[in-house]
């Protein structure tokens, strides 16, 4: 029989993540919404609560936990702050290629600092000419002896201005089908964070551009084999990026449902709370159905990975379903709130704006369908 229950320890992780989010992040949400900037207090709190080292092996200072625990943490954090969950999920996106493809020396150099929050990570693949199609990127490298010289620019990079440990993808200038993934850090001259984006939602999560001008990278910074970098970054995006979006979306779905139930129980119409109206109940039921289905999809994909398998296809399904459902839930939550749903003191306005950013992050729904169709027809 399939066991769909979380272990007692996983339930405790959920409780810990929820307590952490409610006590350490919730008080900072208003400030993040107002300024749009990353809260250094939140980053520090995430580090102190070991949230950055969840999947980093214990021998490198992490907790050595799995994708299920990561999903639990992201779900609970996103329930309070989608922006913070997004930032955290992309830290892991930058960490994963080092765990999976880094040399022992690279792991020792970066992972302990990443586990404790002394270092902050991201992965930079997307460019104006290629994101969902990474082969379209223009950032390129040439060889100078054993070193690589990289030029180009990246856009829409989450954590662009706070990360100091970045996995980048560049293609060979003379061999267009050869891609290399490198990890770069703050001690390497030749790269900088440039333009900062102002997003419609996820305020408090930094997104921006990176530029590389004559960035010299030693061979030791290569992740995976030379010329095989596409697989490195795609594995991270497929397994960790999509999985992270699922946790983030599930948290937002839960938040929409909770706020809707709360408001519908308080708002009186025709002498009764509007929760007595079937049209409102229908919306709440739809949100609940989507949340339950999304959890099954997401946690199944996480369980496959924890069992040692790959689940980038399963995560594509879950990413499509949960981010679409989160957008739907945010719209319904705003609808349930009526006029109050347009007032910024009600969190559903934030949910609506945050939901708009969920769709395109880590691959749009249309791209997920391309991946899913390819899987179905394979």
């Amino acid at each position, binding site marked *: 029989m399939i066991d769909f229950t979380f272990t*007692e*320890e996983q339930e*405790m*992780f959920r*409780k*810990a*993540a929820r*307590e*952490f989010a409610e*006590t*350490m992040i919730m008080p900072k949400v208003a400030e993040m919404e107002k300024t749009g900037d990353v809260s250094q207090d939140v980053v520090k709190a995430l580090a102190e*609560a*070991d*949230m950055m080292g*969840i999947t980093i092996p214990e021998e490198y200072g992490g*907790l050595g*936990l799995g994708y299920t*625990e990561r999903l639990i*943490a992201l779900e609970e954090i996103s329930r309070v702050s989608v922006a913070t969950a997004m930032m955290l999920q992309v830290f892991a996106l930058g960490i994963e290629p080092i765990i999976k493809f880094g040399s022992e020396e690279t792991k020792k150099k970066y992972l302990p600092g990443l586990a404790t929050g002394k270092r902050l990570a991201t992965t930079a693949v997307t460019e104006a000419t290629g994101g969902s199609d990474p082969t379209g990127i223009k950032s390129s490298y040439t060889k100078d002896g054993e070193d690589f010289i990289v030029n180009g620019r990246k856009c829409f990079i989450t954590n662009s201005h706070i990360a100091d440990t970045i996995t980048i993808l560049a293609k060979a200038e003379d061999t267009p089908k050869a891609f290399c993934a490198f990890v770069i850090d703050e001690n390497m001259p030749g790269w900088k964070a440039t333009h900062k984006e102002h997003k419609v939602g996820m305020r408090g999560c930094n997104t921006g551009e990176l530029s590389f001008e004559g960035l010299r990278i030693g061979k030791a910074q290569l992740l995976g084999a030379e010329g095989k970098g596409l697989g490195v970054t795609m594995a991270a995006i497929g397994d960790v990026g999509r999985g992270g979006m699922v946790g983030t979306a599930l948290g937002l779905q839960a938040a929409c449902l909770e706020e809707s139930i709360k408001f519908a129980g308080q708002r009186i119409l025709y002498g009764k709370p509007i929760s007595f109206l079937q049209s409102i109940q229908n919306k709440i039921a739809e949100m609940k159905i989507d949340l339950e289905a999304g959890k099954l999809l997401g946690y199944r994909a996480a369980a496959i990975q924890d069992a040692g398998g790959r689940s980038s296809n399963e995560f594509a399904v879950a990413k499509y379903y949960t981010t679409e459902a989160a957008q739907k839930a945010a719209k319904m939550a705003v609808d349930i709130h009526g006029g109050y749903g347009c007032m910024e003191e009600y969190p559903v306005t934030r949910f609506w704006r945050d939901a708009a950013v969920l769709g395109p992050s880590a691959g749009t729904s249309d791209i997920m369908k391309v991946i899913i169709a390819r899987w179905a027809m394979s």
Partner: protein
Amino acid sequence: MLKIVVCVKAVPDPKAAGNIKIDPQTKTLLRGNVPMVLNPLDKNALEAALQIKTGMEVHITVLSMGPPEAASIVKECLALGADRGILLSDRGFGGADAFATAYTLAMGVQKNGDADVVFCGMASSDGATEWVGPEMATMLDMPVVTMVREIIPHADEAWEVKSALENGYRRMRVRLPAVFTVTRDLNSPRTLSFSGIIKARKKTITEWGLDDLGVSAERVGLKGSPTIVTEMRTVENTRKVEFIEGTREEKAEQLVQKLVEVGVL
């Protein structure tokens, strides 16, 4: 090494208190789906012990009486930093009032042996008698300070404590061993951490029943309880909305009059 015992209780989550009903026939609580959580003031008690541990060599045992499911809150205390957990669980302990609870816990403290300090929350969020700590101290023949809001531990076994009074506070020195019941003003309890949960994997919870404690069944549970609850009812909160008409002055006058009528002014 200083040995501290922290007594904790699993209570229905106070955040979901609105979902708890009272059975009009049996006068017992219908908890519904309300989850059991660590009694909020017991978190302050555990935090007090954990803070003392940062300054001196301390072994913290968490002691709870409850059904087997209460093991989850003992486990939570281990994840927060306690060293050992003991759950007093036996059908015979069921239905205990504050006195029988205090007796059972006191027997647990005695069996665990040589406690220098016993911390309790001042009250539980469900029973709220504030009796268990003082009764336990009497049974253990230890001094007790209730409503503690500040502790300055000293190595010479006489601690300085500040306890709350209705209109102020009382500062005193207390020779150990002693029992302290603590208030929420004492500290800000830490939250669970992932690393704490992982560390708790190696910590054990011991379960003791009636036979392990070696006490008479007549002294514990319902049989050992000198008090019984004879009445329990839900307080109904009603809300009435009334619109006051008239000029601004008339409205103000009527408002003041109505506030006087309902006893607010």
